[in-house]
């Protein structure tokens, strides 16, 4: 039996997208009233929930307090029911710690932390259903949640994964593609300035192809940012209509 054909000669991927097309993105902001900010985001079959508390006073060990900026605290987790096989995922396993760290780094680059010295911002993200691109979906959801909380950011942070198949980059990989032995790369971008907040890749890839991958990832991120922008404007409109009444 042959494996899956990731990119057909006609240029279609397993799920019918073309190489540069993203999955369908749907999002909602302000899903929880008690948190300071929250958002729910679907990218294809990957679904994530992000909640933001803060900025507030430092909790726990005071020693981490920074006098010039706010500390960002991220926590990533996956629901037991998020994959095909139900699996208990203890807190603080290696994978989620790493992911939390990546999220933290991403948002330290985007949030204007210097405005809130001696305080802390908590970002909690949970994957409800996983179908590839967990990191990027978390980043996108958390961006919306941070915006919902009213915390100033330099720009949206948009993230996207890109894989490399048959000499061409594929944007926004789904699980079947990710597990098909593709070298993939995750990139978080501040789209307006074109600054890269985070770039992560564990796979082997020849150096010559890196530029085209990053190029493709940046275009994909800009696509995501358009969608997010629309969601924010829509949300703003709804909220302002409500408050006027």
């Amino acid at each position, binding site marked *: 039996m042959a494996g899956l054909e990731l990119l057909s000669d*006609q240029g*279609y991927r397993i799920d*019918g997208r073309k190489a540069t097309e993203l999955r369908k993105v749907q999002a909602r902001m302000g899903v929880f009233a008690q948190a300071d900010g929250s958002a729910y985001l679907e990218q294809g*079959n990957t679904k994530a929930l992000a909640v933001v508390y803060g900025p507030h006073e430092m909790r726990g060990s005071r020693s981490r307090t920074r006098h010039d900026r706010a500390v960002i605290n991220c926590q990533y987790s996956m629901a037991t029911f998020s994959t095909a096989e139900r699996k208990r995922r203890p807190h603080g396993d290696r994978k989620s710690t790493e992911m939390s760290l990546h999220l933290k780094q991403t948002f330290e680059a985007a949030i204007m932390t210097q405005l809130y010295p001696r305080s802390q911002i908590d970002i909690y993200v949970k994957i409800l259903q996983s179908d590839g691109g967990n990191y990027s979906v978390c980043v996108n959801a958390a961006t919306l949640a941070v915006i919902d909380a009213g915390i100033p950011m330099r720009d949206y942070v948009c993230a996207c994964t890109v894989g490399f198949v048959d000499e061409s980059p594929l944007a926004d990989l789904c699980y*079947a593609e990710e597990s098909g032995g593709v070298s993939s790369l995750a990139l978080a971008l501040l789209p307006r300035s074109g600054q890269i907040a985070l770039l992560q890749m564990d796979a*082997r890839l020849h150096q010559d192809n890196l530029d085209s991958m990053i190029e493709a990832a940046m275009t994909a991120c800009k696509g995501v940012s358009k969608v997010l922008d629309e969601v924010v404007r829509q949300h703003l409109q709804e909220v302002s209509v409500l408050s006027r009444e």
Partner: protein
Amino acid sequence: MLKSKTFVKKTRSGGVVKIVREHYLRDDIWCGSENCTECKQESAVLQRDACIESNLCSYPHYLIPDTNVLLQQIDVLEDPVIRNVIILQTVLQEVRHRSAPVYKRVKDMIHEKEKHFYTFTNEHHRETFIEREPGESANDCNDRAIRVAAKWYSQHLMKSQSDGDGLRVVLLTNDQGNKQKAEESSLLVYKCEEYIKSLIANPELVDRLALSNDDKNEISSSKVLFPEHLPLSKIQAGIKSGCFLQGTFRASRDNYLEATVFVQGEGEDSTEVLIQGLQNLNRAVNQDVVAVQLLPQSQWVAPSSVVLQDEGTAKDDSAEEEEEEEEKLKISAEVARKPTGKVVGIIKRNWRPFCGMLNVSQIKESTRHLFTPADRRIPRIRIETRQASALVGQRIMVAIDGWPKYSRYPNGHFVRSLGSAGDKDTEQEVLLLEHDVPHQPFSQAVLSFLPKMPWSITPEDMAKREDLRRLTVCSVDPPGCTDIDDALHCRQLDNGNLEVGVHIADVSHFIRPGNALDKEAANRGTTVYLCGKRIDMVPELLSSNLCSLRSDYILKLYFRGSWLLFHGFNFLLLPFFPSPPYVLVQASLTYAEAQMRIDDATKNDDITESLRGLNKLAKILKRQRIKKGALTLSSLEVRFHVDSETHDPIDLQTKELMETNSMVEEFMLLANISVAQKIYDEFPDCAMLRKHPAPPPSNYEILHKASKSKNVAIHTDSAKALADSLDMAKVDCFPYFNTLLRILATRCMMQAVYFCSGMDSDFHHYGLASPIYTHFTSPIRRYADIIVHRLLAVAIGADTTYPDLMDKHKQSALSNNLNYRHKMSQYAQRASVAFHTQLFFKSKGILNEEGFVLFVRKNAIIVLIPKFGLEGTGPTLKVEQHTFSIFDKVKVTISLDDSNIQHQKIRMALTHPVILGVSVPTPDVEPQAKKSKLDR
């Protein structure tokens, strides 16, 4: 764009997992027809006037084959007459899962512009997507998808046609149920046979139809000849529980009732299971992957050393006759029993189209005939054709369709004719096809990557490369050689040291990685030399013009490996690889010319001096190499003197070796070893190297047996011991004994193979006694050398790397292909020599020659004739009064036996020693009437 989801349940190693995948539906997938005004496609594939002369469909139409039609009737669909076919994505996916070779052929057809094949991505099209219904099987669902797509096409074409010239689609299916359902939804649907038979203009297509299941019933009687094959599920269960073994079926070349199944075990431990008798062989064909069951130990037998060929009469399934033969087999020797088994099922068929000839049925009107493949290991195939009279005496290609249990022979169909048998071109084609040598002319895509002529070295290259035109570089090659890729120089340095340079054409400068030219060369792997013909790996412009280092006063690009050799008692080699320079080759010599210059004391020019220096050094090198335990083995190579007009062989002689041969060889070996070390140091993970594993002790059995017969001891503990004892092995008054022993020793050896250094730990080259080795010196005719060149170029900073070069898995896959091509090219070469030997003996008539017994079989001896390098089976009959032993000197008469035009063979009959009933009187000059065959 619309979106929907499909839920698929999949089992994986016992567990059931629910897999959810997104499935996007699109409305920007076009129909691909020139006629369509609705679709916004850029280039339409399907033609407007898709006409084909058919008495079923008189209107222009497109064909939609279903999966089974594609799988079974690919031979017909490949015909250039069949055009304008829509391949649905559903069908293509199914073909991909079920048969890789057919999938590749379909893809090739799709890429061919002339065929007008269009792939329609129906499963992502909004209107042709269907969801699987509860209770519907995967097959039914696919069939329905095909029908829905066909329906959509017919409506779409109807609607979108501007001028209404009645373009329609025709669904081809062999499935009765599918056909009926399609008719209900008012589709045009035909069975493939029906449709092909309706093509009045091309009746020859009918022969190429594969037989479908219901046709087979009529072909033979209902008598069951073979046990049923087990279903795959049972086989798998059996293999898991250990009662069956899985292995590759290898039919015996000499005996059609015998085969071995090669069972690959863990690591090194693999076994061979012997299979004997038609019933036990159970319809397995050479190279199939089969499941075997071992018989109880009491029924184990020894492999027979009888030579048996399936000469059974063509008309019947003559079972009785065979039983006798099987009986005969069973009686044979009770000693040396081997694990014996029977085939219980076929895991994977490995059928390919076979070349061979037609045995026309005795009944004149019959349309069923037997086909005899050229490869003896393949059984005869029954085919149906109406053009038998036209095909007599022709070499044809036939594909097997199936082998029902009530038929003595498999059923197949005619694919194409190659030309008349015995014709040199046809025979060459046959042996190329049989050995899977790619020999088509280079495609336009490949040729487009050649440099434009007239080519000259660019100033940038000049600047990058060192100018070494001042050196006296010369090449030494066999006469008539046009692809010269190596040259040498040798000069005395001011400090008394000698500098030797090996100059190899820089082919990698012209073949850039990844382009069509590179891919083609990688696939071909090697240039194949046949007698009087060369199948090039790279187009001729490169092989014998640009990269060839002939002395035509054009600058060439080349790689240089140089060594500093210090004079005196310490003989030291310092390899260094300077940046690739360009050079002017000052002389192209043949081996003989070079030898003459060296021997001629009156000549003292630069070239001669340089040659003398090289020769001197080569001798030292050789001595050192032999001291380390390198083997000098022997095999007889034959050279034909060919008539320049007719290209028929006139004379034949074994190749002569001169001092200069070994001079060039020595330096090439040195270059290869140094380069191997260099690229391995630089790229320990992905260097392409060549190794020659030490043979297992059991391989030396024949050698031991042979040497004992003459009371000579041969030590085979190490390469050095073997080399030494071979040197010692001399028998008085039998000067040829040593050569014979070396010939036998050659046969004990393993094949040398290419491998990627990251995937293996054993690098040793047994034959050359070198810890590391590679191929570097012939980039024009071996692809491995091109890879090595690229690695070396990177190592010395003259070029950049690319992804595939650094990927050890890809390298390893590449070296597997190279090994396969290399092996096949050697076989093809041998087959070509054999064919030309036959041509030679055809013109010579009958000859009397002296020979030596090489092997002794139960009913035959195998004789080697040193004069012609010819090996043949001697008389086949039980001999009781006389014992032959290995290396006995015999006299035989040689003639060409062309009673079987397909397997023309050299027949040898014994003339001395005289044995009653076996030997024949020495024939005089005139050829005698043919004797009846001795083995019947």
